[in-house]
Structure formats: C-alpha cells, structure tokens
C-alpha cells in the first residue's frame, strides 16, 4: 500500500515499514526547542537531563528582549537551564530570531525529519519536506525522552496549478494560503497532514513556501508538507547537520481529499477581522475605504527577505501616510542584517517606517506595537483574532507585505498592484 509523505516520515521514526492513518505510534524526534514555558516545566517535572543536548535548541523569541522584569527573570532561568542541561545551541539576543526562522537557517532541519516544538507555527518546517508540528504541554516529556506519541493523520492534498503571479506581481504564498482559508474554511486541515504540490509550488520561492507551511496551522493542519526539490536543497546546502532524507508520496498513497486550484488570476487577498478565514480580494476591501492606523510587516509569517524586498519596491521614494505608523519586524537577526546590506532599511527609514529588531512582539500582542481601542491595523502576520494584537476593540486585517506597504502609503487598505 502506498504512503503519503507524513506516513513515510512517521513510519521511519517509529521503526516501522508502514503506518496507516488512524494508528497511534510512538516516534523518535530529530530535534526540539527549549522555550521559556518549557524551562519552567522541566523543574516542575523533576527532569535531570535532556535526551540529547545537541538536538535541543534554546531560543527565546516572544519577549526579545525582555520588556518587563518578569520576562527578564524568566530569561535568567533560561540561561541557567542552558548551562545546567548542557544545551549546545543557545541564541542570545542580537544573534536570535523567531524559532521557526532559526531552525532552518542554522541547519536544524533536514528533509525527512520529524520535529516538534512549542509554538503553533512549528508547522513552518514542512516547507523543507519535514514532518513538523507544534506541541505545548508535552514539552518536558519530549525534552526528557526524545520521543512522543502521534496519531497518524489522514492526508489531504492541495495541487496548485496555473501560472504563479509571484512577488513581481505582488501575489505570493500569503495570498494563496489566505485564499485557501477563505474558500475551504479554517478547519479544512484539522488534525490532518496537508500536502502542497503542483507546478506553482515549483515556481515558488522558499520564502513563500515557508509562509504557506507556517500558516498551515491556520487551516488546522498537523503537518503542512511540501515536496523536496532543488530549491529546498539549495536553501539548506552547507547548513544541514544531518544528510537530507527526502520523502515523496507514493503514486497510490491514500488521500481523504485532493483539491486542485488555479492561481493564475488570484489577486492579493485580505482577511478581515476577526478570523484568518475571512479573506476577500483586496479590491473589495479597497472599495470600502478602510482607513488604517498601523501597518505591520514581519513575524515568522512574513518577515523574510522576499517580503521586505516587495515592501521596499513600493516604499522607495515614497512616504508613509502622515496618520499611519509602519512597523517592520524581521523574522531573525540574520534577515535584519541582510536587509541592512541590501539597503532596504534605508529605504524604509526614509519613508518614515519604524524598523525593529527581530521578535514575536506585536504579532501575539506581547510588546513593540500593540493596538489601542478602535484602532485598525493591516498586518503581514498570521492571525487577526479579536484581541490578538492588543485591545479586543481593535481591528486587524491580514495581508501580504506588498499590500501592507501600499496601504501604509495611501492610508487606506489598497491594492498594491497600482504601484507596479
């Protein structure tokens, strides 16, 4: 019987020749993160050592750097834990980034891996042909044992057909995932492995594939897996700590459903408050003249180089609208540095944007750009839940970074294609 990508990876990690959807297995994992919440629970669980200090990566991103004494004290505990457990890879502020950007950049993921980490956007590594999913309460168990129980998920597949408009036309991976969430619902992938294939995937940059896998969790996915191709291997070349073991789905693999969509005519998409599934073409929102107070480009969803290059193309020689603040928060300090070298920060600064260091900060309502009562934000992030970015009386629209930059200039939510 043929297997899907998820089944192949789970079978290999469970020491089995074959697994089927619906089965429960115990599987070894190839790596995990040590995050703040896990540090506290290691003590609570009385864990003396971690399963492999080389495969545990200590990253703090949500409060980078600490905005409160409480957060600073948590970091004191984290640095002590790094020493106590002999964790080899710890990312001090300045050399840090959002967990999901750190893992691939430092070679902690290889095609064929099974990865779990605390943070829902751990589905991101799926773009590297990895079975990767979020955990939370299980973290101490995983850190101690290096294994976890899994229910082998049923698989569904999205086949992306047609011609990919791409960053040149300001229609990217973000628009595809917002479109999928709107058309098929935010529970279409619930507890399932979601595979993304087709000619458009091959055209897509790793950055755009990352955005789709990252927001896989926004359609309920357990895994959001892409095939491995030359772009995958080129991105990871010279970084990987383990050889690539790519998996491909068998021709007779079983899918609960296969959805084919043509993206040739897809416009930029905008998800209206308060749900990522409330997506509509940007023209519909533009027609309503939605005035914005804040524009945000960043996070693990849209804080990579393709994102800031698109924004810079629009912002070059223009100014952010006088009644708008534009905040740019890169996904990692490596990307911060790349933007510096490419002159992108200079373009943003001259436009009147605020460039911050890398942090999860504003995206989850932590710090560095929260919204007040009645404020409206257009955000190149992943969630627009009520209260997510600050006040429950604020309104967040999700969009791609080009739409955010264009809206920041005009002051209303705007189709970026008028800046082509």
């Amino acid at each position, binding site marked *: 019987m043929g297997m899907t990508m998820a089944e192949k990876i789970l079978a290999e990690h469970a020491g089995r020749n074959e697994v089927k959807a619906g089965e429960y297995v115990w599987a070894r994992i190839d790596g995990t993160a040590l995050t703040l919440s896990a540090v506290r629970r290691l003590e609570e669980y009385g864990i003396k050592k971690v399963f492999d200090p080389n495969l545990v990566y200590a990253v703090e991103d949500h409060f980078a750097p600490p905005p409160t004494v409480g957060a600073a004290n948590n970091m004191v505990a984290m640095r002590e834990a790094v020493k106590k457990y002999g964790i080899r890879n710890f990312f001090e502020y300045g050399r840090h980034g959002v967990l999901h950007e750190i893992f691939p950049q430092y070679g902690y993921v290889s095609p064929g891996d099974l990865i779990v980490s605390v943070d829902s956007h751990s589905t991101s590594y799926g773009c590297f042909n990895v079975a990767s999913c979020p955990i939370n309460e299980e973290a101490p168990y995983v850190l101690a044992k290096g294994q976890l129980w899994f229910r082998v998920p049923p698989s569904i597949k999205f086949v992306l057909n047609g011609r990919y408009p791409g960053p040149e036309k300001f229609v990217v991976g973000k628009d595809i995932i917002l479109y999928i969430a709107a058309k098929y619902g935010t529970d279409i992938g619930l507890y399932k492995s979601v595979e993304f294939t087709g000619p458009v995937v091959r055209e897509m940059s790793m950055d755009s594939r990352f955005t789709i896998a990252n927001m896989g969790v926004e359609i*309920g996915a357990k895994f959001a897996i892409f095939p491995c191709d030359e772009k995958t291997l080129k991105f990871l070349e010279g970084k990987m700590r383990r050889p690539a073991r790519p998996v491909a789905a068998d021709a007779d693999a079983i899918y609960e459903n296969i959805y084919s969509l043509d993206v040739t005519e897809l416009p930029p998409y905008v998800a209206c408050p308060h749900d990522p599934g409330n997506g509509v073409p940007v023209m519909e929102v533009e027609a309503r003249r939605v005035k914005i107070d804040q524009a945000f480009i960043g996070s693990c969803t849209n804080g990579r180089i393709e994102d800031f290059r698109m924004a810079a193309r629009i912002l070059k020689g223009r100014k952010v609208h006088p009644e708008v603040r534009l905040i740019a928060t890169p996904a990692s300090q490596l990307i911060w540095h790349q933007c510096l070298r490419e002159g992108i920060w200079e373009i943003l600064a001259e436009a009147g944007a605020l460039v911050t260091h890398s942090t999860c900060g504003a995206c989850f309502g932590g710090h560095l750009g929260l919204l007040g009562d009645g404020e409206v934000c257009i955000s190149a992030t992943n969630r627009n839940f009520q209260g997510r970015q600050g006040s429950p009386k604020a309104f967040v629209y999700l969009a791609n970074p080009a739409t955010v930059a264009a809206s920041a200039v005009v002051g209303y939510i705007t189709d970026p294609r008028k800046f082509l």
Partner: protein
Amino acid sequence: MVFEGRVWKFGDAINTDLMMPGAEVLAQPGLSDKEAAKHCMSANRPGWAAQVKEGDIIIAGRNWGCGSSRPAARLFKALGISVIVADSMSRLFFRNAINIGLPVLICPGCSAAFAEGDQARIDISSGEVRNLFSGLVCQGEALPEDSPPAQILRAGGLKNLMQMEKGE
C-alpha cells in the same frame, strides 16, 4: 469516566487567544493558572469566567481551541470545568488537555443537541453524550482503550504517567 454538570455553550472557532489573552496573560509572566483563568474569554464573553462553578461542562462548536499553542486547557481546569465536548477540536487543544489530564471529547453534532444551562452527562470511555433535559444522545469519538491518549488521561496527565514510568 462519567461526568454530569451544567452546560456552557460556545460557538465555532473559539481560539486560544480568546481563552488565554496575550496582553493580559502571556505578557504577565508569573501569573498562577487561577489568576490567569480570570481573563479567560474576557474579549468575547466578559464576566463569564467568574460565573463558572466546579463541575460545569463546556459544549462547543467546530474547531474549538484553534490558533496558538498556548496552554489554554490549564485555565479551564483551574476554573473547575470537568470536561469539554466539541463538534471538532484543534489538535493542539486536544493534546494539551489530554496531557494535563483534562477530559475532552470530540463529538460531531453535540453542539446542536444542547442549549446553555442544560444538564449533560458525558461518558468519556464510551463516548456517549446525553442531554439530561431533552434526552437527546450523541455519539462521540471515544479513545481506543490502549491508545497513548487514553493511558495518559487515566493516569491524570503526562506528568503522572512519567512518574509512574519512573516508579516501575
């Protein structure tokens, strides 16, 4: 495991940001689960958390607990909720609940069978969900007895299971 109690109804796609608000809870490290639970659903249903009584039951719609991995299941435990039943549930919420020993049951159609304030009887082992007011019965997806989540739930959470494993 059988639970009886008063029903609180929630709709579709109730996310963990609503359950455990970032600005009030995540950005305030050091809050106990009991203190954090006071903010549960404060955006969509202000005042609800204060009305919950020990043993109450939640019946919800589709995609309960979608969104962030934040450990929101702890807050319902701290509020005294005995069991959560939903038409469908996010993987993260499902696992977080099981792993801290909070019983949860996925039961398609349960939401339509209850009104707020009804009395429910939930049998986690068999998956039977009964409305004691109307007599309506729905069949939920009981966990196979030897499955890891069923073992974890019987142990009262992953922490207890680990301690039992150590003791063996």
